[in-house]
């Protein structure tokens, strides 16, 4: 989850009130953010992904200030009108990155503090709201260096050149992707495009190549910058507007004036940013019912004001930077936060329901208890296993369910039977006391086109006995004891299995169904696992057996 850094002095000034450290800690976490650390002047907080509007010092302070009651209710931001700031969007971008939302903010008087703040907003929004620039990317430029109007277009990557931020020489589009560090990091986002998107000013100077990088000349804000041009580019106009709103309101809180721009999508003209509020009916009964409260409309309105909303008649006015209000239930949560989670009563309703274990789980437990009674120790292995351990070392070749993105080869497939896991346990315990008689109950996974997922999962029990005196009789004895305890009649007949010694492995049938193997592991397998003590064992498909009894 994204974190942001707050400068305590700046933060307190923005909030308009100083709190003691304990109070500050408490209020931050009860607002629905997580305090990571406070060290000296630096506060680090974690912001949940549904609140990108809190990913800046300004946005965070705005929410916090309302929450502690300093400045409650809807904040008003004015967007200055004009008709001269124009961005032309050419058709060429349709196939690469079809939309942009833009704004100008003036009078910022940037210093290092503010520049860091702007960089933080941009970075955090890129990562979270922008999904690492996949969904949207943001550019912020010094207006003084740019000649309006601006054109948003796309060109063949080798047909243009510019000096990228922190670059040493002018490069074309492909060179940026292959040579510039930022290009290499985000290059995959343009991989399949024959045209690369560009913002160009009316002098033909390239401002940036989104979502990768700005130009060094026209795309770098500094201490001399007063006015900035901001663009968000991406695929959904709604999200671009939201993102732009989050940025311009933060910059306005920094002391800037927001100016609108006219976006010319061919003949269609759009004005951004659009900071008009969204109105939603306040359903007092619904919210009271779901929260178990009995608040009057007025009180609920006051609580919502603590969360930065405006109230007009029976309507809630949702600020344009809030992106997370999809449903009345989202307002309910904000009412609960303002009310204070710590103030809710704990109540257990008098509802009669009957508890119960799953019958199969009870059966599993019984099997385990019987084996424990026979002196066996239960182990627990991962379901993910190394393909070589499962197949090659067991001298088998089974079709396995495989991961698309395994962490390592050691955990790349799902096991199709339990004995390989048990052999692995034996091989890791050769320095431990013998005999080692162990069992494991767990899921195994097989390919099966008839299942919804294409995978048939069943629960099995695997048992191995490892000691200098074990033989086929020992394992058959344990198997037989288990079957007798479960009152199951079975028959055994010789079979073949690549992991067992030929002539010392049996298939077990119950009511004509094959439900188990019993046998002695062959020395080739023991050699692969470096176990120098004989091993016998069995494996039962408990899911199948359960159906039969």
């Amino acid at each position, binding site marked *: 989850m994204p974190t942001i850094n707050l400068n305590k002095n700046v933060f307190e000034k923005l909030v308009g009130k100083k709190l003691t450290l304990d109070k500050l800690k408490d209020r931050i976490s009860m607002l629905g953010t997580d305090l990571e650390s406070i060290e000296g002047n630096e506060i680090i907080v974690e912001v949940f992904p549904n609140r990108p509007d809190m990913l800046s010092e300004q946005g965070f302070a705005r929410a916090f200030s309302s929450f502690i009651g300093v400045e409650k209710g809807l904040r008003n931001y004015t967007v200055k009108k004009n008709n001269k700031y124009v961005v032309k969007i050419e058709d060429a971008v349709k196939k690469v990155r079809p939309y942009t939302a833009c704004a100008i903010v003036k009078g910022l008087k940037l210093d290092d503090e503010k520049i860091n703040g702007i960089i933080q907003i941009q970075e955090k929004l890129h990562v979270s709201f922008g999904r690492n620039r996949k969904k949207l990317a943001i550019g912020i430029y010094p207006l003084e260096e740019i000649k309006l109007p601006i054109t948003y277009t796309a060109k063949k990557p080798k047909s243009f050149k510019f000096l990228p931020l922190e670059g040493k020489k002018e490069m074309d589009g492909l060179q940026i992707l292959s040579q510039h560090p930022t290009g290499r990091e985000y290059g995959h986002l343009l991989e399949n495009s024959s045209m690369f998107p560009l913002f160009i000013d009316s002098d033909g100077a390239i401002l940036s190549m989104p979502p990768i990088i700005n130009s060094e000349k026209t795309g770098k804000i500094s201490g001399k910058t007063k006015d900035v041009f901001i663009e968000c580019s991406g695929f959904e106009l709604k999200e671009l507007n939201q993102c732009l709103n989050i940025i311009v309101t933060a910059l306005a809180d920094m002391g800037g004036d927001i100016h609108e721009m006219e976006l010319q999508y061919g003949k269609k003209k759009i004005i951004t940013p659009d900071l008009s509020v969204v109105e939603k009916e306040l359903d007092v009964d619904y919210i009271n019912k779901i929260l178990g409260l009995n608040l009057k409309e007025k009180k609920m309105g006051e609580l919502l004001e603590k969360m930065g909303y405006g109230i007009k008649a029976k309507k809630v006015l949702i600020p344009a930077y809030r992106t997370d209000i999809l449903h009345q*239930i989202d307002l309910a949560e904000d009412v609960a936060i303002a009310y204070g989670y710590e103030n809710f009563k704990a*109540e257990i309703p008098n509802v009669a329901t009957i508890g119960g274990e799953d019958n199969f789980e009870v059966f599993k437990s019984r099997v385990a208890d019987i084996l424990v009674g026979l002196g066996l*120790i239960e182990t627990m*292995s991962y379901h993910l296993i190394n393909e070589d351990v499962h197949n090659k070392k067991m001298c088998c070749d089974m079709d396995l*369910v495989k991961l*698309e993105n395994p962490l390592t080869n050691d955990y790349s497939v799902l096991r199709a039977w339990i004995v390989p896991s048990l052999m692995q346990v034996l091989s890791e315990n050769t320095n431990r006391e013998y005999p080692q008689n162990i069992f494991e109950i767990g899921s195994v996974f097989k390919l099966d086109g008839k299942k919804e997922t294409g*995978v048939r999962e069943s629960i099995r029990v695997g048992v191995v006995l490892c000691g200098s005196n074990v033989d086929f009789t020992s394992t058959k004895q344990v198997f037989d004891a288990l079957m007798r305890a479960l009152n199951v009649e079975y028959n055994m007949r010789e079979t073949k299995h690549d992991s067992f010694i030929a002539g010392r492995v049996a298939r077990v049938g119950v009511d004509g169904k094959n439900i188990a193997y019993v046998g002695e592991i062959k020395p080739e397998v023991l050699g692969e696992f470096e176990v120098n003590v004989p091993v016998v064992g069995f494996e039962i498909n408990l899911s199948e057996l359960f159906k039969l009894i």
Partner: protein
Amino acid sequence: MDIKSLVAKLSPLERKVLPLLSKFNSFDDLVDNSGLKEIEVMRALQWLENKKILVLKEELEEVVLLGKNGKDYVKKGLPEKRFLCAIKGDKLNLGEIGAKEELSKEELNICIGVLKGKAAINLSKDNGLIVSITDNGKKLLEKESLEELFLKKSFPIVLKELKDEEKFAFDNLSKRKDIVISDVVKTRSVEVTKLGKEALKKKISVGDVLDKLTPSMLKTGKWKGKKFRAYDVEINVPKINRGKRHFVNQAVKSARKIWMDMGFQEMTGDMVQSSFWNFDALFTAQDHPVRDLHDTFFIGNPANAKLPDLGLVEKIKKTHETGWTTGSDGWGYKWVEEDSKKNVLRTHTTCLSAQTIAKLKKEDMPAKFFALGKCFRNETLDWSHLFEFNQTEGIVIDPNANFSHLIGYLKEFFKKMGYEKARFRPAYFPYTEPSLEIDVFHPVRKEWVELGGAGIFRPEVVKPLLGIDVPVLAWGPGFDRIILEFFKINDIRELYKNDLKQLRGMKEWMK
């Protein structure tokens, strides 16, 4: 204890070993002369030591052993000797010498070095290196070198007992490959105490008391009128192992009981799930980071699942896109069916809750369910992270449920888990609103510990599955942390290490 009763309590093994102590004090000698196995002698000595009859001593000693080449040379002779033998009568080139005496190239080179140093050979170049023996060499052939004498000794030899010339020979040989090796070995000896010396004076016989009571004695009545040897009942006995369940499953069993006590019914289900059930049915946006490759394990084969009946799929699709009839705006994007088909290893047991709600009949409400099972996250294994972990999950489907009930259930649940105090903070999960994070007060560490998330399922989750919008309270704390705390384990990897020593020694779950 007086000497008499001490002697009376001696076991047959002790009776055999004790008399030997008047002649021998090294462990090896005792083994050789007792006719017993090593382990039997050791056991007898330990018992005697417990009775303060003797003191066992262990000394670490540096000893010299023969290496692989050393053993070979003991049989065949040192290479330099064989080299000299080969050229005794005739000048030969190196190849011929090697062939005649089976010497490797490396050995030949060493021989030349050694023998030149002793002026035992002459070298001349004539169509290859030709070697001839000198008078010195002939003398060397007649007598045995220090090194040869050294190799004739019987190994192992205690290093500090070497005489000067033996030390010299050892130093020379140890410079060469694998002839002699020095090693540290344990030598055990026995020192008889004053009490022991007195005991030795007593007559110790093997057969005057009965040892083990046997079935045949009982049948024949031979035990009558005889004395049984008294045992040392305080003595430590070898530990035996019992069968037991894995400690994680012991904990799982107790958590199950808590759920059942609270009137919850168990739900179970598969670990391989479609993204549809794991994410889409839980209103998790298709571009949510949790659906990335680096967060979730996707199945490569079989990669895709079949979706459930079309009606449900259509409802979920519309809910994501526009909110359907849930009163929500939805995510406002185009829902992609292909993405929801992707198979994953379930990232939470919450997918089972979704399936349960989808199957629930309205007349069965209110209903409460729980699940306890393994879930998966694409996370590198380290001391605090596992890619497979246990989650426990509960849902309450009740038209009259509310947020206060959620807090009530949670407090009760964690109290039963052993945490008296719990507090709740706002949190965020895609499928619950309001959401909260649960902290419990750790009674020993005296601090708040985060134990998991909870909330009320969003209408966007419940309505498409159940057909109506009913509050569903849900919570799903991770379970491994509670297990770690109980067993005082710091490294989470220890949970599934399957070290038999650890499993055998683990205490029982008592909660």
